[in-house]
């Protein structure tokens, strides 16, 4: 099938920062993203798990954006401005998509 080059950006970020990140993405013209729940993890600030937690303070989500390659830089700038002072991981992968007109 006909596929098109695109970038898959995966941003793992604190749950409290989710709405700030998605607002920043929208300001940068990114309107499509998918948010996955994260169950736990480990990093320089130690290990954590969502189980039994009531506060949103200790928890992360994963925001996945699939975008055209030429829009990557704008997205990364926007994401970085939010992630900068906060804990979080940003990774970019090359991918192929169906129905490129959607992105």
């Amino acid at each position, binding site marked *: 099938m006909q596929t098109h080059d695109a970038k898959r950006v995966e941003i793992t970020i604190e749950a409290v920062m989710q709405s700030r990140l998605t607002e920043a993405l929208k300001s940068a013209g990114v309107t499509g993203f998918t948010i996955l729940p994260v169950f736990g993890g480990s990093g320089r600030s130690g290990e954590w798990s969502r189980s039994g937690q009531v*506060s949103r303070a200790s928890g992360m989500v994963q925001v996945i954006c699939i975008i055209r390659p030429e829009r990557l830089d704008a997205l990364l700038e926007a994401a970085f401005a939010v992630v900068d002072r906060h804990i979080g991981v940003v990774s970019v992968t090359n991918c192929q998509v169906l129905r490129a007109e959607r992105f």
Partner: protein
Amino acid sequence: MDQILSLTADNLLSPVILSFALGLAASLARSDLSIPEAIAKGMSIYLLFAIGFKGGVSVASHGIDATLGLSLLTGVLLSALLPLVAFFLLQVLTDLDRLNAGAVAAHYGSISIVTYVAGTSVLESQGLIYEGYMVAVAAAMEAPAILSALWLISRGGGDRKMDSDLWREIILNGSIVLLVGSFAIGWATGEEGLAEISSFVVSPFKGVLCLFLLDMGIVAGRGLRSGSGLIKPGLLAFGVLMPVLGASAGLACALLLGLSTGGTVLMMVLGASASYIAVPAAMRVAVPEANPSIYLTLSLGVTFPFNLTLGLPIYVAVARTVTGG
């Protein structure tokens, strides 16, 4: 003294406290006992709704006390001023930097609603009455501490900009809205409303509290296991001293306001308790450089169990002595 001891023994032998101990022990022994996040949140929503509603009903039945407004104001001031005390104490006892000290201080100005609930349940088992509006005071004390802590931090330079989003998040925080909202519903519907839903908000309340504290024990234990390295003696001392100072400040306020014995205990509990839901989330947004392990472990792993086990009976005994109740 005898009274304190017997109260403490009674208190320690309640299902509520023992459930916390069970969770703590299970978690420290690395059992896989755990409660799903959704269930923990569901229980906390139930508890907030029930406690707010019952507070509102009690105000509807007993009418508004002239001290309601004053109590709210006092709560706000207490919440705003306790972080200053905490900040100072932290600088004496620990070597936390300004950011971490400020973040910890915010927690101790604010309150823990579960500690409040545990307090009311001790009062009920002692047959002590209290002002129904104390739950509104609790709600009023959630946020001010955050503002004074951010002010403390920003004095050290670096801009802690309180953007409008953060303001809204703090003021319209889910737990505040639910507490205030259900308080209003209880007030509006009164005893009639209570009759309709009392077998939901009253009867199973204490049992749900047990399971909720089981969960808090598990989470506290997990925090202690991973964060124990951070809790140096100075910090530990702070975690036990600060609630005593907070309770004393609460006592002074209660006496000035002329609260009932039960209300005095609750004001002490509010002063003594440290937030572990709303404030941590606000700190992650506003002071991301502060280490959450420090304030969460201190609040949930040290101060909460202290208040629950030793603090409550002491506060009750002191309040009874002082108010003669």
